[in-house]
């Protein structure tokens, strides 16, 4: 008899992997708890409206269905929006910081034959009620501690600014479809297309075009902030000052050398404001996690306050840990 297949992008986890992933999860949840981040859980399904309210139409969850009363429900495609909803509802009167941790599955669309997963295990934290740069620095320090705890002591945190390009384009008078196209090219890091798109925009001069291209490829140590400032303009000045503030706040915690400034960094979720991060390990060819500030998100649920968080992909952490162990044996 033929065996029963699984849907594309889903998989069974067998005992060895499950044990190792559970070990990483326990390690991180206890680290988070030590730092004051208490674990919570939100439902796997929520009203679709909740995701749309948090992340906008482009952040809409992929897997939607109707319940018995005709309401549209969705499998969560993100952990941050549900936690923002939870905090706005359950911690409405709390004036101090709220520190929460979670570990759970999210569901994303996949393309067949690409090895992508439909169900991803995410583990992370949210720090609500603490603004930049102090809150951002606290999170990055915790992120580096989490990577070290798992044995990824070569992993690096890329630090960028989600508002930089939207503000720069506004400053240069690029609006509407042209703005959308340039932001899309940036999200794909298609420098050839950015040059072509910028060339098509009559409102841009030669210097402004090369500023957009140069800025999107500018990354490295703190010195790149000076190179960015040399490109000029209030949007770049604001982002450079904000990034320098975050780096200063990090210097005290001793993790600044694990952070790379990346002015071309963009995240694909619609709620980020200000500092954004992505995590890379030299043994793995793709980002293993990310996050950032989302200072406007709580307001969308009626309880405005600054907030930020990060999530790590548990499967990729596990792959990176195994790779680092193998690399360590070879060294």
């Amino acid at each position: 008899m033929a065996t029963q297949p699984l849907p594309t992008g889903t998989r069974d986890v067998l005992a060895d992997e499950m044990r190792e992933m559970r070990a990483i999860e326990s390690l991180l949840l206890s680290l988070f708890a030590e730092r004051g981040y208490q674990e919570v859980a939100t439902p796997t399904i929520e009203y679709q409206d909740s995701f749309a309210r948090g992340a906008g139409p482009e952040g809409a969850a992929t897997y939607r269905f109707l319940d018995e009363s005709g309401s549209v429900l969705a499998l969560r495609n993100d952990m941050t929006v549900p936690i923002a909803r939870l905090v706005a509802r359950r911690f409405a009167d709390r004036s101090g910081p709220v520190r929460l941790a979670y570990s759970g599955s999210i569901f994303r669309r996949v393309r067949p034959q690409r090895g992508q997963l439909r169900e991803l295990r995410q583990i992370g934290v949210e720090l609500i009620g603490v603004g930049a740069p102090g809150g951002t620095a606290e999170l990055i320090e915790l992120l580096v501690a989490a990577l070290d705890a798992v044995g990824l002591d070569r992993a690096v945190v890329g630090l960028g600014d989600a508002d930089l390009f939207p503000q720069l384009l506004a400053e240069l008078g690029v609006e509407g479809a042209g703005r959308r196209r340039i932001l899309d090219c940036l999200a794909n890091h298609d420098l050839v297309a950015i040059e072509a798109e910028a060339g098509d925009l009559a409102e841009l001069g030669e210097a402004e075009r090369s500023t957009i291209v140069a800025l999107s490829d500018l990354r490295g140590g703190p010195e790149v902030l000076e190179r960015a400032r040399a490109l000029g303009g209030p949007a770049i000045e604001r982002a450079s000052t904000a990034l320098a503030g975050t780096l200063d706040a990090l210097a005290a915690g001793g993790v600044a050398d694990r952070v790379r400034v990346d002015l071309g960094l963009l995240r694909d979720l619609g709620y980020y404001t200000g500092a954004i991060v992505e995590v890379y390990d030299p043994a793995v060819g793709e980002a293993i996690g990310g996050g950032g500030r989302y200072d406007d998100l709580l307001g969308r649920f009626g309880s405005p306050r600054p907030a930020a968080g990060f999530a790590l992909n548990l499967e990729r952490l596990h792959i990176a840990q195994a790779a680092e162990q193998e690399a360590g044996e070879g060294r």
Partner: protein
Amino acid sequence: MMTRALRRDPSGALTLALPRGALFEGCLTMLDRAGFDTTDLRGGSRALVFELDGLTIVTVRPSDVPTYVESGAADLGVTGKDVLAEQDDRKVYELVDLGFGRCRMALAARAGGTDLERAERRFGLMRIATKYPRTADAYFERVGRQAEVIEVKGSVELAPVVGLADGIVDLVDSGRTLAENGLEVVDEIAASSARLIANRVAHKLRADEVDAMVDRLREAAP
């Protein structure tokens, strides 16, 4: 990707994936001009990995270059824009238009004929054979014409001649292959040329080395 895509040697020489195909000669010329010794690559060797001075070369099928670079098995790669457009969900960084290997993605049909119009009018859609189904779908979506896209792996020009399809979407260089099969370009879809692409993590973690190599190759591009 969630495959166990481990980088070959995250601390050794950068790895560049080159396409064994129409762009290969242009890539070798570029490497020569950048000061690399390409003698081994030019020999009839069946080897797939070559160690140059400070650069590891892996040679793969053109359409596989984005796969290697996305996973981090190669840090950099050269492939045609046609391949990148067809695989537009690959998370790689497109850094430089190298300028060689220029050609056009085009819709073509039998010369002097009205096959496409007739098929649309009488049957409601055109049958289009192509090696680039996603590029073709996106094009027909954009221009608002209905087409049934038939994926074939090679000899696309044959399809309209024997009646498998009413037209084709394919890369056109000089147009000679089309002419020899009695076909002509009906519409140009996009221009293509060789592009230098980078793995996202290598681009961040080895920024200085990647930038230096990108500059060196950019200046050497024909």
